[in-house]
């Protein structure tokens, strides 16, 4: 009887988490997952298995964090050659990357570090509040805000780049600040 009640209450709780399935599927698609539906289903399976870890009030940051890890894992599995040959920097090979963008934006986003890019996209595409995005990335909100500000500046500077790719003075100055 008690077990039955526990399962029922777990299912009730999981239902509120599961309601975000569409959001997580869209996230996986935006990050270029090869099988966004399967990845989102995997996120939900992990959420069910580890339901005690999912914050009941606001499960979204936890779901995004898990989805991001799974996208990274998917990329690592699908690009072993690129990683072992060291021809590309690892951060580019292992990061969830934006797809189907205009070339300028793609180039500008690729110029950012993976975590800076993710910070920007969690706010711009996933519409997360900075505090939620910070949780999804596992960093504290103050550090997130600084990172977001820096990423915005860098992206803006990169988007102003001329076609030949010469870096403007402002960008190199930003790089001196460190990542």
């Amino acid at each position, binding site marked *: 009887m008690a077990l039955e009640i*526990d399962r029922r209450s777990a299912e009730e709780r999981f239902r509120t988490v599961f309601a975000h399935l569409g959001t997580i*599927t*869209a996230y996986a698609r935006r990050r270029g997952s090869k099988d966004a539906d399967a990845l989102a289903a995997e996120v939900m399976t992990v959420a069910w298995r580890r339901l005690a870890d999912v914050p009941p009030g606001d499960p979204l940051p936890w779901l995004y964090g898990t989805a991001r890890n799974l996208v990274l894992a998917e990329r690592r599995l699908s690009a072993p050659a690129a990683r072992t040959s060291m021809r590309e920097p690892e951060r580019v090979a292992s990061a969830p990357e934006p797809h*189907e963008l205009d070339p300028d934006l793609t180039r500008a986003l690729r110029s950012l570090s993976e975590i800076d890019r993710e910070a920007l996209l969690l706010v711009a*595409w996933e519409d997360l509040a*900075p505090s939620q995005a910070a949780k999804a990335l596992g960093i504290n909100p103050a550090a997130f805000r600084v990172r977001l500000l820096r990423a*915005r500046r860098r992206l803006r500077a990169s988007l102003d780049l001329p076609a030949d790719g010469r870096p403007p003075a402002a960008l190199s100055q930003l790089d001196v600040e460190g990542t």
Partner: protein
Amino acid sequence: MKTDPTILRLRKANPHPLPATVDAADLFARITERRPDSRLRRRVTRRRRALVLAVSFGVMALLASTAYAISNWVFNSAVRPKVTKQEYRLAQHELTLPPGVSWPTLNVDPNSVTSRGAGGGHAVLISQNAWECYWVKAISRGDTAGQQRAQTELDALLANNILVAPAGAPEDWRPPNPPQVPYAVFAHDGGLEWVRKTYALAAAGHPHRLAQTCRANAPR
């Protein structure tokens, strides 16, 4: 943030701006047919245990406070025979009896309760009756000093040890600030006036009513 041109440009470029539509019922059923997180059960059990403990403490506190309130309510105004007898004994040190008279034994049913102060009140009435009878005898034998003493003692008793309950007060009325001396409570029915009149008549040489009172109230 929402008006930042970089963020706005990124938003416009969102390749999938809407959440995906997914047929989820089957997936939900498939996921939840597996075992749920076992830590949840522990957490629920722990929470339930904490709740049971909290409720138990609450009930215990309620019972304790109720018991305290009831005992206060019952035993503050009603006392056991032991207390009544103790009051009676203490009152004997504060009241007087005429020469040759001793305090009678107070018999109280062991399974009864009495109003607090009743032992002292009983002693007051014993003392009053003894002095009334003494006064009657002093008149009959022409003992002026004895009459004078009896009257003084009875006047002091009426002044210090007898209270009159307010009009309409219940039978078990107690003064809000009980005096530190033994006291008896008379009803608000003119009884005290009748006693005063009896004493005035006796002082004027007419002991008839006083003799009647002595006989009527003598301890049996």
